[in-house]
C-alpha cells in the first residue's frame, strides 16, 4: 500500500489502481492528436493582431509561395457554416463569435485564416507569411476600460434566473452591532490543460469522424452537425483519453466545424494542432471578477445581514456569467440577505467554465470576509463558522441533504495543528520567516444529469460497459468498472469499459462534477436489469427475482462480499435457461426531479442538470475545510506555502485513490489560484500578454512541498442511487481565501486582490 491508496472508511469503495494506468505509463493511451490518419493535410491557424475593427485586405502571395501549401482559408473563401447558439441558450457553443464569417474582428487572437499544407512545418511557415491590413478601433479590455457596458445578469443569461435574497438586508445591516464592508478582485485565468486544443477531421463519404479532446462528445457531435447542416447521426466524436479539461473542453469552440468543413472540401483528413498561445483566445477562460461583501453580525458572532455583489467580464455578444451568489447566499445561516450579479461587456473572447466556475471567485470574497469579520469580533475563524453553521439554507429554507462542514473543520484543524496557532497577527515567526495559519470553508453543489449505458455480460463473467462518458483524468474508467464489477459480482479484471465515443450511449458533459454520480448511477441500474433477467430465468416463480436489486453476486466468486442470506446465482444455469450466449441490457436513467424532456435532450447533447440549490424541497452540496501555512520572508517577501491540509465529505467515495488524487490536485489548484495564476491583459490592446507556460505561472513540483487530504465518511441517501457527491471541483475552492487569511495572520496585511505576489507584500 502506498500513500496514494488511502484505507477505505465506511461508505468508500476499494482504492484499486486506475483502469487506464498501464496505457498511460507506456504511452499507449491515444489522445486526439495521436490518432493515426491516412495522408493528412496539416492546418495552422492565423489569428488576429487587433482586438476590434475589421480586416481590410489579405496579402497571401508570399504565403502561397511556400512549398507544400495547399490552400489558405479566410472569410472570403471559407466553408459556409450555420449560426450557432450559446450552450446556455439551448445551443452547444461556448461562444457565438463565429470566425471566418466576415471581416469583422471581435477580439484579439480571433481566428482569421487557416493555412493548409502538406506538412506542419510548411503550414506554420506560410501562416507566418500571411500579411493582413486592418482598420483598428480602440478596444475595451476590462473593468477599467472606457466603452464597456454593464447590466444585471438576471434577464440576460437564461441560466441565471434570480439574485437570491431574503428578509430585509438594509435594515438589518444598519442595525448590526458589528459591520464589515470589503471589496475583492479575482484575475483572468486560463485552464491550460496539457493537451493542446487539437482537432482532426476525417470524412468517409457523408460521415464525419472528429478526433478532439472533449468533455462532451454528444454536445460536440450535435453542435458540429448543426453548424454543418447535416444529420447528427453522421457525426462521430472519438476521444478515449482527454489530456485535461478543467472546463475548457465542455462546450464547442468554433475551430471544429471550420476544420470539418475544410476537410470535406479537400476530401482529405485535416489535422490541426494549434499553438499554446492560440489556446488563450480560441477557447474560453475564467473571467476576472469584482466583489463587494457586506456582513453584519451580533457581538457573539451571529450573522444578521449579508450582501454579495459581483461583477464579471464577458464578451460583447455573449452574456456568460458564473453567478456564484447562488452559493454564497446559502452557505451560512443569515436571516437578511441581498445579492446582485452584473455582467460587464468588453472586446474579449467569451469566457467559460473553469474548474468550480462560480465558487472559486465568489467564495474567495465570502471566505476572506468571514475571516475579516472573525478578526473584528476577536473570534477564532473556525468558531465563527460553527456559530453560523446551518442545516437549512436561508434563502428558500430547504434542508441540506447532508452537511459535514464542521466535522471537516474539526478533522482538518486537528491534522493541521490549528491549536498551535496564536491568534494575534504577526505573532508567529521562524528565523527570517513570518509564519501564518489560515483556513476557509469550501463547498460545491452536488449535481446529476440523465445518462444512458449499455452493459453486456458473457457466460464467463466477462463484462463490457459502454457509455459515452469522458476520461479527463478523474478516474471515469475506473469507477465505472468498479460499479459494474460490484453490481454484477464479477471480478474487476473481467470488466472492459468503453467511453469517449459518441457512438456509445449518451452521457452528460463531464462538467459540474456530475460524471461519477450520473454515469455510475446508470451503470448500476443497467447491471440490475441484467440481474433481474438472470434471476427471472432461473426462478421464474420465485419472489427472489424481485429481490434481485438487493442481491449481490451472480457469479460463484463475487468481487465483493455478498450480504448475509444472499443466494449466489448459477450463471451457467441462467444463461441456459435464457437460451443465450450473451445478456445485454441498455437503459436510460434520470435523476429525481429531472424535466420531462430529459431523455430527448440527452440524445441531442443537451444536459439537464439536477442538483445544488435547484432541487425540490432540499439542497445538496459537498463540503470541506482547508487549512494552510504560509511563510513570508521578512526581507525578500518571498511567499511559500509549505503545508496544505484539506478535509472533505462527499457522500460515497467510489475509489479513495482516484478521489484523493483529485482532491490533492484541487488543493494545489487552489494554492495556484491564490499565489500564481493570472492572465495579464494589455489594457490598450485588449490582448493577453503572458500567453505561454513560462509566463503564465502554473505550479511545478518545487512549489508543492506538503499536501494532506482527509476524506470523511459520509452517507447521503437523498441525492442519487450511488450516493456520491461530485468532488473534482471541491478542493480548489476556498484555498485562495485560506491563503490570504494566512498571509494576514503572518503579516497583519489584508490582501483582497489575487494573485498575491511578493511585490504585494508590505512588511
Amino acid at each position, binding site marked *: 500500500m*502506498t500513500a*496514494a491508496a488511502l484505507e477505505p472508511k465506511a461508505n468508500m469503495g476499494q482504492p484499486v489502481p486506475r483502469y487506464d*494506468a498501464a496505457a498511460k*505509463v*507506456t504511452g499507449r493511451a491515444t489522445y486526439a492528436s495521436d490518432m493515426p490518419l491516412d495522408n493528412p493535410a496539416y492546418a495552422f491557424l492565423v489569428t488576429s493582431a487587433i482586438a476590434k475593427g475589421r480586416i481590410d485586405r489579405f496579402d497571401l502571395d508570399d504565403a502561397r509561395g511556400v512549398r507544400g501549401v495547399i490552400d489558405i482559408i479566410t472569410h472570403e473563401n471559407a466553408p459556409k457554416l450555420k449560426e450557432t447558439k450559446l450552450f446556455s441558450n439551448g445551443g452547444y457553443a461556448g461562444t457565438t463569435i463565429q470566425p471566418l464569417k466576415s471581416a469583422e474582428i471581435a477580439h484579439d487572437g480571433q481566428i482569421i485564416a487557416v493555412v493548409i499544407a502538406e506538412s506542419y512545418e510548411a503550414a506554420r511557415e506560410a501562416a507566418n507569411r500571411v500579411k493582413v491590413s486592418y482598420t483598428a478601433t480602440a478596444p475595451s479590455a476590462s473593468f477599467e476600460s472606457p466603452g464597456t457596458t454593464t447590466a444585471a445578469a438576471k434577464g440576460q443569461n437564461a441560466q441565471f434566473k434570480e439574485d437570491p435574497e431574503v428578509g430585509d438586508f438594509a435594515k438589518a445591516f444598519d442595525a448590526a452591532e458589528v459591520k464589515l464592508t470589503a471589496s475583492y478582485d479575482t484575475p483572468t485565468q486560463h485552464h491550460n490543460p*496539457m493537451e493542446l486544443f487539437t482537432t482532426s477531421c476525417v470524412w468517409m463519404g457523408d460521415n464525419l469522424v472528429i478526433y478532439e479532446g472533449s468533455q462532451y462528445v454528444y454536445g460536440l457531435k450535435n453542435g458540429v452537425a448543426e453548424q454543418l447542416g447535416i444529420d447528427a447521426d453522421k457525426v462521430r466524436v472519438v476521444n478515449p*483519453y482527454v489530456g485535461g479539461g478543467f472546463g475548457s473542453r465542455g462546450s464547442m469552440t468554433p475551430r471544429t466545424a471550420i476544420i470539418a468543413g475544410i476537410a470535406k472540401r479537400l476530401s482529405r483528413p485535416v489535422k490541426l494542432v494549434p499553438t499554446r498561445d492560440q489556446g488563450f483566445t480560441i477557447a474560453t477562460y475564467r473571467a476576472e471578477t469584482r466583489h463587494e461583501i457586506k456582513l453584519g453580525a451580533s457581538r457573539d458572532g451571529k450573522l444578521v445581514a449579508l450582501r454579495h455583489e459581483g461583477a464579471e467580464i464577458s464578451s460583447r455578444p455573449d452574456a456568460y456569467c458564473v453567478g456564484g451568489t447562488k452559493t454564497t447566499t446559502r452557505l451560512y445561516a443569515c436571516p437578511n440577505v441581498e445579492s446582485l450579479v452584473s455582467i460587464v461587456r468588453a472586446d474579449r473572447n467569451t469566457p467559460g467554465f473553469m474548474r468550480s466556475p462560480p465558487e472559486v471567485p465568489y467564495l474567495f470574497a465570502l471566505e476572506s470576509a468571514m475571516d475579516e469579520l472573525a478578526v473584528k469580533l476577536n473570534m477564532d475563524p473556525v468558531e465563527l463558522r460553527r456559530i453560523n453553521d446551518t442545516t437549512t439554507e436561508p434563502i428558500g429554507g430547504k434542508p441540506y441533504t447532508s452537511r459535514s462542514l464542521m466535522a471537516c473543520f474539526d478533522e482538518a484543524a486537528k491534522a493541521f495543528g490549528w491549536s498551535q496557532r496564536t491568534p494575534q497577527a504577526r505573532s508567529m515567526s521562524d528565523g527570517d520567516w513570518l509564519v501564518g495559519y489560515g483556513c476557509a470553508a469550501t463547498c460545491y453543489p452536488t449535481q446529476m444529469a440523465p445518462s444512458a449505458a449499455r452493459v453486456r455480460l458473457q457466460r464467463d463473467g466477462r463484462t463490457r460497459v459502454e457509455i459515452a462518458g469522458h476520461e479527463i483524468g478523474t478516474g471515469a474508467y475506473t469507477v465505472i468498472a468498479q460499479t459494474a464489477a460490484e453490481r454484477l459480482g464479477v471480478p474487476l479484471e473481467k470488466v472492459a469499459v468503453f467511453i469517449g465515443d459518441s457512438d456509445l450511449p449518451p452521457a452528460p458533459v463531464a462538467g459540474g462534477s456530475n460524471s461519477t454520480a450520473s454515469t455510475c448511477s446508470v451503470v448500476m441500474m443497467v447491471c440490475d436489469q441484467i440481474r433481474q433477467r438472470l434471476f427471472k430465468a432461473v426462478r421464474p416463480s420465485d419472489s427472489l427475482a424481485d429481490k434481485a436489486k438487493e442481491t449481490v453476486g451472480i457469479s460463484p466468486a463475487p468481487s465483493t462480499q455478498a450480504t448475509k442470506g444472499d443466494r449466489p446465482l448459477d450463471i451457467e444455469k441462467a444463461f441456459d435457461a435464457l437460451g443465450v450466449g450473451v445478456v445485454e441490457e441498455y437503459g436510460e436513467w434520470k435523476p429525481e426531479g429531472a424535466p420531462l424532456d430529459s431523455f430527448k435532450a440527452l440524445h441531442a447533447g443537451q444536459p439537464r442538470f439536477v442538483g445544488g440549490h435547484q432541487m425540490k424541497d432540499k439542497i445538496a452540496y459537498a463540503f470541506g475545510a482547508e487549512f494552510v501555512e504560509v511563510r513570508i520572508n521578512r526581507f525578500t517577501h518571498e511567499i511559500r506555502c509549505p503545508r496544505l491540509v484539506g478535509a472533505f465529505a462527499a457522500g460515497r467515495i467510489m475509489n479513495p*485513490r482516484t478521489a484523493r488524487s483529485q482532491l490533492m490536485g484541487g488543493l494545489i489548484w487552489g494554492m495556484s489560484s491564490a499565489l500564481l495564476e493570472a492572465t495579464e491583459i494589455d489594457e490598450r490592446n485588449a490582448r493577453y500578454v503572458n500567453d505561454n507556460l513560462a509566463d503564465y505561472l502554473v505550479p511545478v*513540483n518545487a512549489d508543492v512541498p506538503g499536501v494532506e487530504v482527509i476524506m470523511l465518511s459520509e452517507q447521503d441517501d437523498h441525492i442519487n442511487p450511488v450516493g456520491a457527491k461530485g468532488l473534482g471541483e471541491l478542493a480548489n475552492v476556498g484555498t485562495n481565501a485560506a491563503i490570504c487569511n494566512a498571509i494576514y495572520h503572518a503579516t497583519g496585511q489584508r490582501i483582497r486582490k489575487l494573485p498575491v505576489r511578493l511585490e504585494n507584500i508590505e512588511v
Partner: protein
Amino acid sequence: MSDKSSSRTSTFDRRAFMAGAAGTALVPMTARAAAQDANVPVARDPSLPVEVTLRVNGKDKRLLIDARTTVLDALREHLKLTGSKKGCDHGQCGACTVLIDDRRVVSCLTLALAAEGQEITTIEGLATDDRLHPMQQAFVDNDAFQCGYCTPGQIMSAVACVKEGHAGSEADIREYMSGNICRCAAYPNIVAAVKQAAPEIMKG
C-alpha cells in the same frame, strides 16, 4: 512525408543543410568547397525534404522530412510513436521529454537532423517484454498521474533524474522534476513514485 525504404545511404550532408537553411554568410568557404563535389547540392532549396536516419529505441528509422522537423514531430507524425506529447512546442512544459544518449531533452526544441547518430529513447522503449519499467510501475502504484498527458515526459524525466543522482531527497526530486508541468497537479505522488523506483533503477 513518411518512412522511405530506399536502399541508398543518406545523401544528407550537414554542411549542405547549413548552407541552405542558414544562408551563405555563415559558411561561404564550405559551401564553395562543397560546390566542387557533384554529389552535394550547394544552393539547395531549404524547403525540400531531406533524408535522415534516427535511431529510436534501438532501431534505425530512415525518414524523408522537412529540415525543420523537430524530434518530437518526427516521432509523432512520421514514426507513429505518439507517446511523446506536444504540450507547448516551446520547451516550457516537458511533455515531450525523451532521452538522447541518456540525457533528458525536450524533443520539441531538438531538430531531428541534430539527433542523427544519437540514441533516442522514448516512453515506448522503456518497458521490456511486456514488463513495466520500475519507474512506470512506481507511477502506477503511487497514482502519479490523472489525465496522463504529461506522464510519458514525467517518466522519462524521472528516469534521468534518478540516473543523474538527483533523487537523494524529496527536496531534490521536487527541484529536478520541476521542468515537467503536471496541470492535474499529481506532484506529491510523482515524488513518491520517483522515491520508490530510485533504488531499483540504481541497482539495475
